Each structure stands twice: as structure tokens, then as C-alpha cells.
């Protein structure tokens, strides 16, 4: 036994939520298990702000756990920890009285641990375990409400998550054997020219793409994110998708053969996701599509950073950081708006509109800063695409606000209470406000450290213009569509599987194949046993006939006499 070495805080950050998850299952704690949730990310928040330099090695656990986070990963870890904390605070109120709080809390903690783990893991086994933890236990967050659509969404989610796991496993195995090491850094280097390396990279993109909602692997996302309880939706859309992003950051090798394809897919997702969001009416589903779109951009940024050896993931991380905070605010804000009336409701909507603008990258917002920084790492047409994506984002988030404003006030449990309950509970509003502020403001604070650009760069006219015109374009489109009485949005909720279902119907006859194969196998087996049996019967009949003959003394006696001669003759040879 060799004890762990290096800083302990990363280890504690991972183990602490796991411990809390177990504590949540203890009988005396079970009923109040939700109270534990805000405690879970605290060590991680500590880690994020104290900073963890150095590498933690725990040689005995798994295949030797190595922890440590690079600068981009640490930024995302900060985001994740904060978002989980905010969501946990939100859950104190919004999920009060939910069924099975212990199970929910337990999986919440497990998912959190996994989510933190993917940022900290330095070896592939730990990463895989963490990724599986975040990926698979999130299933229980999705299906927590156990409604029919939640279960349906959960099924699709788990199937794709498993496919993703398998893709990743195969890719990791190829990489680890090529690198002859389990260290992610070496695997990344080895993947560049390993045998089957390109195939492995494709699998990596598929595996992480599923998690991050890369089209066309995004189908689960608009079903699963809205189905979960609101705090869970927030972490799913804000933090958990970042597991896919960080995976790509860590593993995508420099100058891979398919980098360009990944970039193209990323941008396609960015536009496709946003436009697809216009087809649905449910606010959370629209947000999910927005997440798909944003993640497409981030994936494109990550892939772009791998084009040359010196590429920096910082822009992607910076962009992702902002998106996570903002998306968390938006999802939590849905509950805020739905749960309040009057001016509280209007205030909420305004707040969310501000956040939405930030996501779209309006000038001087956090999102605008992130976009401005991101553009520096891109080529010409990519820059244009990124700029233009702000228009579609504006459009889809505008549509979101419209739908949210139109959604009925949901106040079922509080109806019996006084009218004074019109204003939202602080535990609901607090996190939303905090996240929104953080989303809009904190990129300013991080600007010079992460963009590498002068401090006045966001205020320059060119920057402002390139941020403003697409947003304006998007707003114009909103106005146009509002005038046309919103021709979009024919579906209540997302239904990405229609094609699949149709294909399934067409392929339904194939279902009979295993059955008929089994029948055939059984028939062959029966026939061959019957043949063997027949042969056996024939042989036995023959033997019985012979036996009857030998029983006659005339034959047997003669046989003895003949055999005397036969033996004598044989002996004479």
C-alpha cells in the first residue's frame, strides 16, 4: 500500500460528494437528504478558488488514480462547482416534497462527483470511471419524476449514453495501447499517429459528441434535459454537457485528419440546433436546443484549437464557462418565472432576457466578451460563422422568452396559501440572480487572463459592431416572426425520433429474423437428432436380429467350430 501523494484537495473534492451520497441513504437522513446537496460541491469550489497546483497520485485506487487539472479544465471545474451549488440551493425549495429524496440526492452527488472527476482526471481509467459516473447516474436525474415522457427520454438517453461509453472505451483502448500508458496526455500524443488513430478520434468525437449534443447525435438532449426536475436540467445543460467538451479538449490530438470535419459539424450544430429549437413550444425544450447550438460552437472552437500544435483551449473554456453560467441561470429562471406573478414575473423575464442577450453575445455582455475572445483563434469564414450564429441564438432565445412569457403560472402547491406568495422564494430567486450576474459580469473579470487581448478590446468599435449586428439581425427576425404570428413552433415538445420510428416501422420485419433463426436452429437440431436416433434404431434392430440368430445353437456351435479352424490358420500365418 502506497499512500496518496500530492495535494489532497482534489481528492477530497471527489470523495466528499460520494460520502454525502452514501450518507443520504442512511435511514435517519433519508427524508431530509436534499439538505445535503449544497454541501456537496463545497470542496470543489474551494479547489477552484484556492487553485490546486501539482498532481495528486493515488496509486492504489482503480488503475492508479492521477488527478490534476489544466488551466482550461480548472475554469470549467469552477463553473461546474458553482453551478451545482446554485442548483442545489434552488433544489432546496423547488424540489421540496419530492418523492424519494434520498435516491435523488444520492445520484445527484454521484453525478456531481463524476462531473468533477472528468475535469480532474489525468489518467484514462479515472476519466472513464468519472465519465461513466456523470453519464449514467445522470439518468436517474432525468427520470426522477418517473412520468411517462421522463422514462421515455431516459430510455433514449441511456441507450445513447451507453453507445457513447462504448465508443469512448474502444477509443481509449486504442489510445492506451498505442501510448503504452494510461496518462491522458500521452494518449493524446499517441493518437496522432497510432494505428487506427483516426478511427479512434472519430470514436472520441462520437462519444463526447453524444454527451455534448453534437448533431446528429443530439437526439436525446432535447428530450432529456427538459424532462428532469429544473435544478437537474440546469446542471445537465450547464455543467454535465461540459464533460463532453472537456473530453474533447483533453483527447483530441493535434492536427487530426478529421479536425475540419469536426469544426464543420460544430458549426452545423450551432445553426441547426438553434433553428430546430424554433419548432418546439416548451420553454425548457427550446433551451435544450439552444444548449445544443452553443455546444456546437464550443466543439468547433476546441477542434479549431487543435489545428496547430500551439493551439489554446483557453477560448473554448472561456466560452464554455460563460455559457454554463448563463444556461444555468436560464433553466433555473424558468422555474422562477413559472412560480411568480405580476412584476416579479416581469422582472424575472427581464433578467432572463439580459442573460439571453449575453448568450447571444450582445456587445459588452459576458457572452459578447467570450465571443470576441473566441474569434481570435479562428479563420475568416469561421469567424463569420461564429458571428452569424449570434443571430440564430438571438432568434431561438427570443422564441424562448416568448414561450416562457406565454406559459401559465404554475403555483399549484401554493394556491392554498396567501396571495402574498406571488413573489418567489429567495431560494428560487437567489441562485438565478447570482448566476445571471455571474454570467454577465464575471467574463469581464477574467478577460485579460483568458483572452490574451488588451483590456479595451471589447470596447473597440469593430468589436462592438461585429457583436451588435447579428444580434440586431436576430431581433429583427424575431420582430418579423412575431408579426407573422410565429409560424414556428408546431411541436409542443421535441420529437427528434420521428424518423427513427418510421425507420423502425419499416424495419419491423427484421424483428422476426432472430425468431426464425432460432426456429431454424431448433429444426436443424431436431432433424439431426432424429437422424441419429433413426440410425441408432437401425443399428439396434440389426444387433437384435443377429442376437436372435446367434441364440440358435446350430449357428453358434458352428461358429465355435469354425473359429477353431480360423484361429489355427491365423496362428499358422
Amino acid at each position, binding site marked *: 500500500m502506497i499512500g496518496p501523494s500530492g495535494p489532497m484537495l482534489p481528492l477530497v473534492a471527489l470523495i466528499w460528494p460520494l460520502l454525502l451520497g452514501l450518507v443520504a441513504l442512511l435511514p435517519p437522513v433519508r427524508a431530509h437528504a436534499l439538505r445535503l446537496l449544497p454541501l456537496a460541491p463545497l470542496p470543489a469550489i474551494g479547489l477552484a478558488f484556492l487553485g490546486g497546483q501539482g498532481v495528486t497520485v493515488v496509486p492504489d485506487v482503480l488503475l492508479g488514480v492521477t488527478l490534476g487539472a489544466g488551466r482550461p479544465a480548472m475554469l470549467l471545474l469552477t463553473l461546474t462547482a458553482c453551478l451545482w451549488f446554485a442548483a442545489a440551493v434552488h433544489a432546496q425549495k423547488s424540489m421540496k416534497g419530492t418523492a424519494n429524496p434520498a435516491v435523488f440526492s444520492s445520484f445527484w452527488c454521484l453525478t456531481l462527483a463524476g462531473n468533477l472527476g472528468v475535469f480532474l482526471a489525468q489518467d484514462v481509467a479515472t476519466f472513464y470511471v468519472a465519465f461513466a459516473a456523470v453519464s449514467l447516474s445522470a439518468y436517474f436525474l432525468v427520470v426522477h419524476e418517473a412520468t411517462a415522457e421522463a422514462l421515455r427520454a431516459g430510455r433514449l438517453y441511456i441507450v445513447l449514453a451507453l453507445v457513447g461509453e462504448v465508443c469512448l472505451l474502444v477509443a481509449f483502448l486504442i489510445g492506451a495501447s498505442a501510448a503504452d500508458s494510461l496518462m491522458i496526455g500521452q494518449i493524446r500524443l499517441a493518437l496522432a499517429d497510432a494505428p487506427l488513430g483516426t478511427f479512434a478520434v472519430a470514436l472520441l468525437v462520437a462519444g463526447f459528441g453524444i454527451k455534448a449534443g453534437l448533431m446528429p447525435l443530439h437526439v436525446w438532449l432535447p428530450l432529456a434535459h427538459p424532462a428532469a426536475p429544473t435544478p437537474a436540467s440546469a446542471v445537465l445543460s450547464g455543467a454535465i454537457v461540459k464533460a463532453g467538451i472537456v473530453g474533447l479538449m483533453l483527447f483530441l490530438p493535434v492536427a487530426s485528419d478529421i479536425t475540419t470535419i469536426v469544426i464543420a459539424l460544430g458549426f452545423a450544430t450551432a445553426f441547426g440546433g438553434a433553428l430546430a429549437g424554433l419548432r418546439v413550444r416548451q420553454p425548457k425544450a427550446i433551451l435544450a436546443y439552444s444548449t445544443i447550438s452553443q455546444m456546437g460552437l464550443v466543439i468547433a472552437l476546441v477542434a479549431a484549437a487543435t489545428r496547430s500544435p500551439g493551439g489554446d483551449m483557453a477560448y473554448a473554456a472561456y466560452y464554455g464557462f460563460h455559457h454554463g453560467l448563463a444556461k444555468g441561470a436560464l433553466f433555473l429562471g424558468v422555474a422562477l418565472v413559472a412560480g411568480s406573478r405580476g412584476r416579479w414575473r416581469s422582472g424575472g423575464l427581464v433578467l432572463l432576457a439580459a442573460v439571453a442577450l449575453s448568450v447571444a453575445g450582445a456587445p459588452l455582455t459576458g457572452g459578447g466578451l467570450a465571443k470576441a475572445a473566441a474569434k481570435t483563434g479562428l479563420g475568416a469564414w469561421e469567424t463569420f460563422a461564429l458571428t452569424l450564429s449570434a443571430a440564430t441564438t438571438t432568434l431561438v432565445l427570443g422564441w424562448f422568452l416568448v414561450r416562457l412569457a406565454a406559459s401559465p403560472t404554475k403555483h399549484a402547491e401554493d394556491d392554498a396559501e396567501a396571495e402574498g406568495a406571488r413573489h418567489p422564494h429567495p431560494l428560487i430567486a437567489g441562485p438565478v440572480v447570482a448566476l445571471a450576474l455571474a454570467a454577465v459580469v464575471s467574463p469581464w473579470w477574467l478577460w485579460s487572463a483568458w483572452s490574451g487581448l488588451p483590456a479595451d478590446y471589447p470596447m473597440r468599435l469593430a468589436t462592438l459592431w461585429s457583436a451588435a449586428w447579428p444580434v440586431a439581425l436576430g431581433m429583427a427576425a424575431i420582430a418579423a416572426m412575431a408579426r407573422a404570428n410565429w409560424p414556428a413552433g408546431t411541436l409542443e415538445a421535441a420529437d427528434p425520433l420521428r424518423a427513427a420510428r418510421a425507420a423502425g416501422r419499416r424495419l419491423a420485419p427484421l424483428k422476426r429474423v432472430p425468431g426464425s433463426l432460432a426456429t431454424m436452429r431448433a429444426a436443424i437440431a431436431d432433424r439431426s437428432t432424429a437422424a441419429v436416433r433413426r440410425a*441408432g434404431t437401425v*443399428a*439396434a434392430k440389426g*444387433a*437384435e436380429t*443377429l*442376437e436372435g440368430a*446367434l*441364440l440358435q*445353437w446350430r449357428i*453358434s*456351435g458352428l*461358429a*465355435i*467350430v469354425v*473359429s*477353431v*479352424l*480360423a*484361429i*489355427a*490358420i*491365423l*496362428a*499358422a*500365418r
Partner: protein
Amino acid sequence: MSVSLAIVALVTAPLVAALIAVILPRWGPWLSLLVVAGNAAALVVLIPAIVSQGALTLPIGGWQAPLGITLRADGMALAFLTMAALVMAAVLVSARPEFGGGGEVTETRRQWAFWPLALLLWSALNVVFLSRDLFNLYVALELLTVSAVALVAIDGKADGLGAALRYLMFALLGSLAYLLGAALLYAQHGTLDIALLADQAIGGRAAVDMMAVGLMTAGLAAKTALFPFHAWLQPAHSGAPAPASAMLSALVPKASFAILIRIWFEALPGLATPPLLVTLGAMGAIAIVYGSVLALRQTRLKLMIAYSTVAQIGYLFLIFPLAGGDSYMQPWAAGAWTGVMFHALSHGLAKASMFLCAGLWIVAAGSDRIEAMRGLASATPMIASAFALAAVTLVGLPPSGGFTAKYLMLTSAFVSGQYVWAAVLLIGGLLSAAYLYRPLAVAFARDGDAVFKPVPRLAQAMPLMLALAAILLGLASQGPFALMQIGRPSSAEAGLQ
């Protein structure tokens, strides 16, 4: 001196006891126990003596061959004697309920006849194993045949009498052929002593010798029930009462087989030719498959066991092609020869056990149809275990004597490149598993609701003892193996060619 006494006692004690039992029928059961004890004592004296001094030769009355008759106790003889003693002990103990009278019923003829016949049979057996004089062997073989035939007919029913007569026909013709062969040998060599014959016949390949071996081999094969001379066996063995069947199946064929071994391996090894050896082996092989196939078809337990004997006798004849097939890679000499001996011994123990089991089951179930045994395993667990262990031996699964036998034979077959015999050995094993499985499976089934007659525990213990002995033969095969090497003919190692 005590050694000579022991040898003589092995021959005479059962004989004397048989004569007394004829006169004093009531004493039969007790006398048999006495003989069992005496026999055991004699073996206890003999085995260590042989192990320390090697094979012992005892000219009876001090008359040396060729005029006198020689008894010779070598390893093989002692192994067979021991096996016979075990089987006889179990048989004689198990026969008490059926033939002991016990006073509750008036004595019947069969109760009177059983004990002398069994003891006579035993005496004749012991002589066969010990004697080295071809004519003396003839007399013993006849005595054996007569008592065996009489045992088959002991019930006095039509089936038994018919089976006995059929048996008698084969046996008489076999005896006559053997006697004629012996006469021819005497005419050629002027002696009937095996050792002297071996000295004389070295190098010679006289036509008379060939005729003589032809006669003797065919005659003995008929008595051993080698295919295709086995037609008498199945009615005789299945028709007799269970204890008699046990003796008939386990011991009687071994006697004629032992004489065959003495003739071929000790007296006239020079006469063997490859085609003859292959022919004898082939007959054995056919017997294995044929007997097994017929055993599979039987619906009556004793018939099935009898056919199993037909098959198992086939293995014995594989000794002819296989002996001598051992290579420098194996540390043993005469592996195949010893293997066949192991087979003879373990088959004797297991088959006796199986017939005793069958007898008890038939009594318990009131029928000898295999189907009637349904559920008997729970009612009579000891019998079921005995039957299962005996089956393990007969199939040749480890760790049993049957396995040791099969292993030694198989190795010889492979080393000498005679893969056909190896295939026969394996197929025979599988077929025997197939037919022995059926009664076991039926006995293990619980869905019957038949009511069985209780079986006393002592009677159950006897077949179990025999079956355990057969297993023990495999577990502790070192001792028997070493024993059988004492006085082993050199041809056993070199092969018959």
C-alpha cells in the same frame, strides 16, 4: 510352510466346506462365513509372502512336473484370488436372506443346493487361478462350469432350466475343444505343465501346436462369452438369482480368461501372429459395441447388466493386440497387460455389486423393469450409491479401477499407434455411460409414488462395499499394480509377436 498351507487352504477349504454343506445343509451359511474368513486369512498370509519373496511354486504332494501338478501363486493369481474372495464374501453374505432359510420356511431344494454350489464354484475358481497344469485346469474349469450351470438352474423354472441347458451346450463344447487341444499339446510335447511347455515350445511352430491353440482358444472364448459365442450369457446371467448372477458375471468368465492368458502369455507366446492378434482384438471390439448397443435397448435391469457383461468382456480381449505396446516414454512395463488385468478386477467387483444392487432393487420394486425403479434412490440410498459407483467404474471414470485400466490401455494404444483400439475404448466407455445412466436417472426421479419393500441395511451395505472396493482399486492402484508385476510373464512386456 504356512505359505504352502495357505495355498492349499485356498483350494481345499471351500471344497471341504461344500461337501459338508451337502451333508449338513443347515450349516451352509455358517460354513461359508468360515470359508470367507479362512480365505481371507490365507490371502493375508500369502500376499506379504509373495511381495517379499516373489512368485511361489508349490508342487502338490512334492511331485514335480511333468508328473505332478504345480500350483503357482504369482501376482496376477493373487489379485484375482483377492477379487474373488471379496466378491464371494459379499455374495455369500447377501445370499443369506434368500437362501439362508432362517427357520421360518421349510427348507427348499434351492436353499439346500445354493451353498455347496457356491462353495464348489469358489474352490474351482481358486484352482483355476493357481494351477499351472493344463489338465488340472480342465478339471477345475469343468467343476466351475457344472456348478455355474447348476446355479443357473437352481430355481427349477422353465426359463432358468432352458438358460442352464443353453449354457451347458456352449460350455460342454468349449470344454471338449479345450480338452482336445490339451491332448494334442500333450502328444506334441509330452507335458501339460505350463512352464515346461513354455520351455519346449520356444522357437517351435508345429502345426499341432497351432491346432491345439485354435481349439483351446475357441473353447475358452466360448466359455468367456466372447462375441459371437455369447448367446448363452444373457439368459443365464439374467435368469439366475441375483447372488448367483453376481458370481456368474463377475467371476466365471474371468476363470476361462485367466486360462487364456496363461496359455498365450506363458505357455505358447511364440505362436501369436499379427493377424490373429488383430482378429481377437476385433472380436473384443465388436463385443464392446454390440453388447453396449443391445444393453441400451433393454428395458429390464438384469438383461441390461448381462449385456453390459458381454460388452465388458470385449475389453479383456484387447489385451492381445495391445500388450507390449508401451514406449520408453512411459515408466511402466506391460502397461496394457496390467491394464487389462485391472479391468478384469474392477469389472468383477463392479459387476458383482451391480447384480447385487439389481437383486435388491427387484425385490424392493417387485419387478425387474427399469421403469419400476422410479424413485428408488430416495428409498434405498446406499444401493443407489453402490450402483452409481459401480457404474463409474464400468464407464471407466476416475478415480476408479476402471479408469486406471482404461488409462493404461489407452496409453498403450496411442504409443503403439493403434488408434482404432483407443477409439473403441472410448466409444465403449461412452456407450456404457449411456446405458448405465438410464436406471440411475429413473431411480433418481421422484415423480413416482410407488411403495417399496424395505431392504435391510446389511444387504444394502454389501454391494456398496464391492463398489467402493472397485473405486479403491483406482485410488490405491499402486499396490495392486506392483502386486501384479510379480511373476509377470516377460511376454506381457514385450507383446505377443
